[in-house]
Structures are given as C-alpha cells and as structure tokens.
C-alpha cells in the first residue's frame, strides 16, 4: 500500500533534501541548488499526478483507450520556465555579490556587513 504511492515518497524525500540544503548551507550557490531540488520535487508531484494507469501520451491515435492528463504537464512546463528564470536571477545575484564582497559564503558576508 505504502509503496503503491512511491511517487509521493520520492517527492517528499526530494523536497526535504532541497529544503534542508536551503536552510543549512551557507554557500549561496549551494542554496540555489537546494532551491532547484525543492522546485523539482514539485514538478514531479505535478507530472506524476497527471499519469493515468495504462494511459498513453495524449495524442489521438488508433487503439488508445486511455490518455494521461496533459494539463499538469503543460502547467509544469510553465513552472519549469519560472524555475529557470529564478535560478538565472539568483545566480546573477550571486555573481554580483561575489563582485561586491569577494565571497559567496553567507557568514563571511554577514561579518563584512557587521564590520562596515
């Protein structure tokens, strides 16, 4: 029973992994990586939810009786684009922070701000 919902277990494990990295890591780049993993887990949640047991890709062909739900897939394409944009912006900020502070370590940056 529990294993029949294995896709949710994967989602939860990925989500917690990503969340942990975001909170725990002091490296700004790693935080972005964590954020990506966190977002990916949600993508998988959407994609797996659209899967219909025994369904095929939603293209009308002869012999197909059941189709997977295409809507979540379409939605998640949008979400992936948003995720890419976020990552790009986040990395740009990290580059600028590195230029301004000479470091991508959160603690080092905070130390500099306190001293300033």
């Amino acid at each position, binding site marked *: 029973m529990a294993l029949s919902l294995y896709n949710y277990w994967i989602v939860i494990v990925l989500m917690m992994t990503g969340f942990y990295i975001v909170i725990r890591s002091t490296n700004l780049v790693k935080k972005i990586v964590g954020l990506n993993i966190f977002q990916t887990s*949600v993508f998988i949640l959407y994609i797996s939810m659209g899967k219909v047991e025994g369904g095929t890709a939603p293209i009308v062909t002869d012999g197909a009786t059941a189709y997977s739900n295409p809507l979540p897939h379409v939605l998640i394409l949008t979400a992936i684009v948003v995720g890419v944009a976020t990552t790009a912006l986040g990395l740009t900020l990290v580059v600028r922070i590195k230029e301004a502070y000479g470091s991508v370590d959160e603690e080092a940056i905070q130390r500099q701000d306190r001293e300033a």
Partner: protein
Amino acid sequence: MIDEHLPVLQVVVPLLAAPMCLLLGRGTLAWGLATAVGWFALYVALSLLGSVPAGGEIRYALGGWAAPWGIEYRVDRLDSYVLVIVAAVGALVLTYARASVAREIARHQHAAFYAALLLCLAGLLGIVITGDAFNLFVFLEISSLSSYALISLGRDRRALTASYQYLIMGTLGATFILIGVGLLYMVTGTLNMLDLAERLPALGDNRTVLAAFAFLVVGICLKIALFPLHLWLPNAYAYAPSVVTAFLAGTATKVAIYVLLRFLFTIFGAGFSFSGMLLSALLMVLALLGVLVASTVAIFQNDVKRMLAYSSVAQIGYIVLGISLVSVTGLTAALVHLFNHAVMKAALFLALGAVVYRVGGARLEDMKGLGRAMPLTLAAFVAGGLSLIGVPLTAGFISKWYLVLAALEAGWWPIALLVLIGSLLAVVYVWRVVETAYMQPRPAGAAAVSEAPWHMLLPIWALVVANVWLGIDTDLTVGIAGGVAVELLGGAP
C-alpha cells in the same frame, strides 16, 4: 467596444509596455512611457471599479476560451478595489520616479529599471484580476522576479544580499503555493477559482485538501511577511531604491493579503478555513506579536527607511488581525487598512525618497534640521506619520476605529487595548523623526539643502491629500470594504 476588453487591457498593456521600455533605451523616454502606462492602468482600474455591480462580477474569457478550459479573468468588487490600490500607487510612484531614479541608479540601467517596474506592476495586477489558481502563481512569480531585480539595484551592496534573501524566501513561498494549487487540482480536477469553490465543500475534511490548505496558508503568509515570516522584508525595503520601496510597500504585500483573502474566503470558504478556531487563533496571535514586536524594533532603528519597513510589518499585523476576527467589522477593518496603509506608506516612503534625493541618505542624523530646509517634504512626512499613528481626520484613524470596534464586538477588549498600544509605539518612532527634523539644527559644515523639486512634491502631496480625504470621506474605502466583507463572509454558515 474597448470597454468589454478592459480586464485584459489592465494586464496586457503594462506587460507589453515593459519590453518597449527596453527598446526605447533612453531613460527619459522609458520613464514617459512607463508613466503613461501607469496612468492608463489606473484609468482602467477605476472604470472597472465603476462598472462592477455590487455583489456581481465581470467575467472575461481570455482568448475566447470559455472557462473551465480557458483562463478566465474575473473582476468582482474586491478585485477592483485592490486593482485601484495597486494602480493608483503605481501611477503616482511612476510619476515621481524620474528624478529619484536618475539620482540613485546608474544611467545605463534606467530603461531596464522601468521595464522591470512595469513587469512588476503587470504581475501584481494580474494576480488580482485572474480567476485561475495556476495563472495566479505565474503572475506571482512575474511580480516577484521583477521585484528581486528591482531591489538589487539599490546603491548599497547590501541591496544584493537583501534581494538574494528575498529571492530564496519568496521562491520557497511561491513553491508552497504551487504545491497547494497542485494538490487542489488533484482532488478537484479544476484550477478555476469558482469551480474550486463549488467542488471543495463536497470533499469535506479530505486530508489532501487539508494539506493543500496548509501549504497555501504558509506560502501566502511568507509573501505577506506576516510575523515571524517577515525576515526578508526589512532589509529588502531598507536597501532597495527609494522608488522601489515606495512601490512595493504600497502594493506587493497588499496583493499578497488579497491572495490570502481569496483563498481563505472565496475558495475554501470561511466555514472551512476557520472551523475549529485553530487558524483564527494562530493568525491572531501572530498578528498581535507582529504589531508589538515590529513596532518596538522600529523604535530602535537608526535608518528611517528600515524603521518604516518594520512599521510595515506591524501594519500587516493590523490587517491580518482584522482578518483573524472573521467578522464583517473585522474584515472591513482589514480591507480599509489595506487601502489606507498603501496610501500612507507610499506617501512616507516617497517623502523619504525626496530626502535621499537632496541629502543623500535616510539615516536619522541625515534628517537633522530638515524641518526648516525642506518644509514641504517634512510636512508631508509628518502628515503620513500622523496617519500611521491613527490621529483623527487621517485615513489611519478610520482603520484603527474599525479594528478596535471589531475587537470589542468579539468581546476581546484586551486586543483592542493592544491595538491602541501599537498606535502609541508608532507615536514614539514617528516622533523620533519629527524631533530630529524640527528641533535639531543641521550639523555644522553640512551642505545646504533645498526643498525637493515640484515634480517630486506633487505626487507626495497627492498622497497626503488622499490620506486626509480618506479620513473624512470614507465612501470609497469603508463603503466598498463593508460590502466586500459581507460578500466574503456570504458563504460562511
């Protein structure tokens, strides 16, 4: 002809104007276009407000695809009310922006700046106007991404870290919302808000629905900056360019609160959201803590912008407190304060922007002697501050009055007292600035300071006049908010 397409024009015009700003390239031209678009958005918002019947709504099928297949734009009175807030603040801030942006942002970035500001405006307007839960997420990200970029343009390098911090927390919040929306789709098979509202009651206390609810509330509260999820806000407001701070303070958190209202009251329904008192009690405690803690922290800030940022966290507490009372008066208070706070905070941050423009900083010691040097700017600041305190004949008084009334109606007089204590804390932090500006001389050797230019003063004073006007004639705020509150609670048992 054009009237029937107003809902889509509201969003599409700023959205399309944003890349055009980039193409125009030159700062002044981009500013001109952005400002024109801002005023057009306000015109559309006001026309929508005028044409939405009480209790009714305007529906617009995007691209002619009827709901539930296509995305639907829906404008009821709550929508049009928030649209007016966002568009009005946007138009005034854009009008004001030119000189301030020229002073604070590198020249080659001007066009990109206005493009990002328009994108942010389009995103915020889109969140409000859409009737589709997933579309809401997309607009949320459009506005958020552009606001991260805008914040990072601040002169201080700490603007970068502030923006980064906001990006992390904002994305977490948005992803939580995405999860919530996904779970809702899973159990109902629809993303249309009206359909969701129709189908959810039949599911009862389904565990997936509960999980969706929890994800949504936490995600939205992150965007609202409800205490203790507010950590991104003070830095973001303090280090962003003055124009951006004024714009975000007047619009972003307001729209997030609108999203909360939409989900709690329209989609889940007050009966579901507040069954068992758990959420109500939680929101109430957090809101009150927010009011008291943030106001106290504000007292000890030396950077006036940061002080006002903490004050914003406290004011958000007032709004959420009104929501947590789940009564018509409480919701009226929340909605009225939504409007009033946008107006007063925008006025205060714009006045502060004028100070930065002339003096170069907004720390307390920069304010010394400005009462004489910049009388009109500082008078506007005092007027905004009085409204923040809730002095009668200003907009702030009306909000406080309803909030106290709502607390008393619910039989919770200690809450009424705490609200008023919050006001007194506001007296302290506002008065620190007033005393410094009026009763301490300019430091010896400081450069002479003159009054802000008229094109900055004009939008500031428009907001100040609105502040007083909304304290005397409350048809716009209380009139609409009262009706909306009844509509929102209409589904409640």
